[in-house]
């Protein structure tokens, strides 16, 4: 697989030159491969949102470079909009960005900015609405009369309609009820499987991250702490706890058993896997 996104020594400082100066992202480097599902976790204020906003050129790094398909995205600052179409970004609480009269128009906003034809836009609106699991009847409603969860879906559909090569989701499930979260998550996974595109997923829910991702990037006060498979990352139970993060409950149980001297693996992510491991040591 080829590398689609490469980040080199990325640093971002807020309010430079004032007493409030704050280094939110500190010298981060990593590479994401085409088609990968990468999760980003870290405590509140660890710099996750700041990091992802640099990946599609919404904020310009204080120093360091971002490469998309081997090209420096800031090489031609005038063409930064093209990058934004290719690296789609769904913000934390995206429901505040809705503004059009109807849901359909709002979803079409991004696609329209790309300069697509009317019929192509129509197609994309319809397919993206399907992806996020909204009924067609919503298309004619005003976005302001929807519930929070429905607004969230509309906002996500608006980004999916641009058909980006990389989709960044900043805490898409925050503030949704358990059912809504489960649904949205499975839709994101289906979208990933169908489109085979790259996804960066920022989340505070370790259970979700453990189930869904190929690799996990752990951030701590602006630094990358780990960038590895979920199994390897969650095997570091104590370390993650010190960073203010939790690990999935089942992983916690298995890690503790392992520490107590039982022969089970660390970094077990699913209940099925745990049952399997426990049965083998019980049989012995």
């Amino acid at each position, binding site marked *: 697989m080829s590398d689609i996104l490469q980040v080199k020594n990325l640093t971002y400082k807020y*309010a430079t*030159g*004032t*007493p409030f100066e704050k280094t939110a992202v500190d010298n981060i480097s990593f590479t994401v491969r085409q088609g990968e599902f990468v999760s980003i976790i870290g405590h509140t204020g660890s710099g996750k949102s700041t990091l992802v*906003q640099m990946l*599609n050129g*919404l*904020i310009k790094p204080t120093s360091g470079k971002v490469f998309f398909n081997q090209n420096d995205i800031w090489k031609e600052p005038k063409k930064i*909009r093209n990058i*934004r*179409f290719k690296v*789609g*970004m769904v*913000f934390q609480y*995206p429901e*505040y*960005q*809705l*503004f059009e009269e109807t849901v359909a128009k709002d979803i079409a*906003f*991004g696609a329209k*900015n*790309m300069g697509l034809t009317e019929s192509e836009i129509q197609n994309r609106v319809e397919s993206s609405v399907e992806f996020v699991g909204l009924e067609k009847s919503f298309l004619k409603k005003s976005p*302001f009369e929807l519930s929070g969860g429905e607004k969230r879906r509309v906002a996500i559909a*608006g*980004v999916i309609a*641009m058909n980006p090569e990389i989709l960044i989701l900043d805490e898409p499930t925050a503030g949704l009820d358990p059912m809504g979260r489960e649904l949205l998550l499975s839709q994101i996974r289906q979208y990933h499987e169908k489109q085979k595109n790259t996804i960066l997923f920022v989340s505070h829910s370790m259970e979700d991250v453990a189930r869904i991702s190929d690799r996990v990037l752990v951030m701590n006060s602006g630094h990358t702490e780990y960038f590895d498979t979920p199994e390897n990352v969650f095997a570091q139970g104590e370390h993650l706890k010190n960073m203010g993060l939790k690990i999935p409950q089942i992983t916690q149980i298995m890690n503790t058993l392992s520490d107590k001297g039982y022969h089970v693996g660390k970094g077990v992510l699913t209940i099925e896997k745990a049952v399997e491991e426990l049965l083998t040591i019980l049989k012995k």
Partner: protein
Amino acid sequence: MIKDITLGQFFPTNSLIHKIDPRVKIILISVYIVFLFIAKNFGSLGFMTCITVILMIITKIPLKLYFKGLRPVLFILLFTSVLNVFYGSGEPIWQWGILKVTWNGIQTAVFVSVRIVVLIMISCILTYTTSPTDLTDALERIMKPLTVFKIQVHEIAMMMTIALRFVPTLLEETDKIMNAQKARGADMESGGIVKKLKAMIPVLIPLFVSSFNRAFDLAVAMECRCYRGGKGRTRMKVLKAGKIDVIAVIFSVIVLAGVIVCNVMFPQLTVK
């Protein structure tokens, strides 16, 4: 970016000027502005400039920030200087058609520019060292005598407090929404004025919607805590003038004396 606006921003440090009672500070700053207009010649203006620079250093706020506060008025400054240079009276030292530059014009231009710069700096000292809530509290106290004329001083002060409180929130929110729309390919940088204004619609609508929602929430929250206007309302933190305020007043009297002395001593330095 939008956040670079510094005018009216508060920078907390532990300086002496931060500790002065806000009422005293507002009055003294107004008095300094009056001094600035009493200063008639370059001697007294220079004296006021020195005092202002000393005050700026005492605040422990980086001088760079003060110059940032100047940026919005730079245009006015240039405009008045250019006008003054050409509108002077007396012997022209350079002439081109009806445009003539006189010695008097140059002197006036410099004098007026320095005066404007110092004026801005002095106001910045007030806003940079006083938190917005302190500022409005103090204003409410100072304006209290106006209640005699049936002016709703408390309501005005409360509105100002709320407005000031939400300026940073609104700026932050504008930034966020702008970013969200840019992420969907909104083009806000290029094009003429009409196109740029049109490009602001996707930002303004969500901003208005959330502002109204927020105003509504705030009103409910205030009513839940039994807010019913200023009548019979007491304060948790009562403003009290202390030693440092006395020192500040004495210092200001000395400065006034200095300005008057300079005015009298250096008549040869007046603008000719």
